């Protein structure tokens, strides 16, 4: 193959890579052409050719900067946002599915809409701790740390979240702000309201419980309080997911085991009580496949 033919074939290759969007590969191929031309000063029009190839390389470099730059995520149409929300909510439990949908919106950069969804969840008392944390994440993703702080302050002065939840949220927000290099003095959480109002809502109804603490009475973590988010609640039976990796925990929380020291967290209150493990089922499908669903019957609050 003559030098001219070699250059022609390399240029053809580089053009094809460029047409395929393989800009780095196209640039590498043009660099080969350039090196070859530079080594052949007697090549006809070599200066002109060198200049033309260098121009193409510059163009590709500009293109590569664009490709490597973090993509700007636009606000998608509400229809597309709904599609994302529906496609990425996998759980059968409606509340967990709603949380997954909202999280998907956030992961795809639809923070404003995600905020809306998390606020709805929090208002309905669904997974409040997770909803609240995600609301703060969205504010920070929207570059509004002040909104996150204002929101936290509103929660502290309101009664949507329990003291324990607010303390966790405070630590969480503090951590987020520190990572962003923002120093803020977040107000401490006050004591919750009177305990008699805490454990029951309307007469005979158990309040919606968002998370639960269980003090273990056996196993290596004996005496320790372990906390779980409640994924489902039907009357006085709550369900929590325990990872299959938590073998000791699963062993300690056998069916019919009485749990004498429990703490129940609801959006408006915390109460102590006892419960009994009324069921333990292995999850057969979905993202939590292999983990265990524990049903706990609340015996007194």
């Amino acid at each position, binding site marked *: 193959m003559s030098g001219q033919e070699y250059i022609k074939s390399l240029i*053809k290759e580089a053009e094809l890579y460029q047409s395929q969007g393989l800009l780095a590969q196209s640039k590498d191929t043009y660099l080969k052409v350039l090196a070859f031309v530079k080594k052949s000063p007697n090549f006809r029009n070599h200066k002109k050719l060198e200049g033309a190839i260098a121009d193409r390389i510059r163009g590709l470099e500009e293109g590569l900067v664009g490709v490597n730059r973090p993509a700007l*995520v636009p606000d998608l149409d509400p229809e597309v946002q709904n599609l*994302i929300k529906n*496609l990425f909510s996998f759980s059968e439990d409606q509340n967990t599915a709603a949380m997954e949908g909202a999280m998907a919106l956030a992961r795809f950069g639809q923070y404003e809409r995600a905020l809306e969804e998390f606020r709805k969840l929090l208002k309905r008392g669904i997974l409040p701790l997770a909803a609240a944390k995600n609301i703060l994440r969205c504010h920070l993703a929207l570059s509004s740390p002040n909104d996150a702080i204002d929101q936290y302050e509103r929660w502290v002065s309101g009664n949507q979240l329990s003291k324990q939840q607010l303390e966790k949220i405070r630590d969480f927000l503090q951590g987020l702000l520190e990572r962003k290099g923002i120093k803020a003095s977040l107000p401490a959480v006050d004591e919750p309201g009177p305990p008699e109002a805490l454990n029951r809502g309307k007469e005979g109804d158990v309040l919606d419980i968002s998370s639960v603490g269980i003090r273990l009475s056996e196993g290596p973590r004996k005496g320790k309080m372990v906390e779980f988010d409640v994924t489902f609640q039907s009357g006085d039976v709550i369900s929590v997911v325990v990872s299959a990796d938590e073998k000791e925990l699963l062993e300690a929380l056998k069916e019919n085991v009485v749990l004498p020291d429990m703490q129940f967290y609801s959006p408006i209150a915390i109460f102590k009580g006892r419960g009994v493990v009324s069921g333990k089922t292995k999850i057969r499908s979905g993202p939590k496949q*292999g983990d265990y669903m524990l049903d706990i019957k609340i015996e007194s609050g």
Partner: protein
Amino acid sequence: MAIFNAKNRIIECKIVYYGPGRGGKTTNLEYIHKAFTKQRAGEMVSIDTQGDRTLFFDFLPMGLGKIRGCDVKVQLYTVPGQVKYASTRKMVLKGVDAVVFVADSLEIRRKANMLSLRDLQQNLAEQKKSIFKIPLVLQYNKRDLAEQDMPIVPLNVMERDLNSKLKVPSFPASALRGTGVGATLKACLKLTLHHLQKELKWAG
């Protein structure tokens, strides 16, 4: 994570087109959208692309009609192939029932194919799924470039690189022309339905 609605006898499953960036995953879906009009259950949605690079995912719903008395619905997705979109790939792969791995036949993409296949294996493992057990089909795309004297990897080498351990069905293809696209999808659907029959103990 196929959904089987026993009451209405509807099965919904999810197939994800996976592979290195610029390998032709979106082009596969575009061809399917154009060619399989009868099976189309809705429009193809390309969610936020930058130029012609997929940033999020593409989505195409299909209906296969009744099989053994069940209405079978299939959702086809693509993932963004670029390495930096790892978290989006994981997310789109969640709940997947079957995978079409679209490999790029260009010689310069040989390593990218292998890295992407390994990435698939890892992401499946995170979902407690094995690449050796999930319905999987390989597609060796861009075979047409050989006609333009472009350096492409011979099929036997692609088989050795990507399929020597997996031993799954593989198809040469040109997604741009549509060659091999239908065969790939059909083989994947066949494997998926067979797998679901076993998983869901679904009989007529």
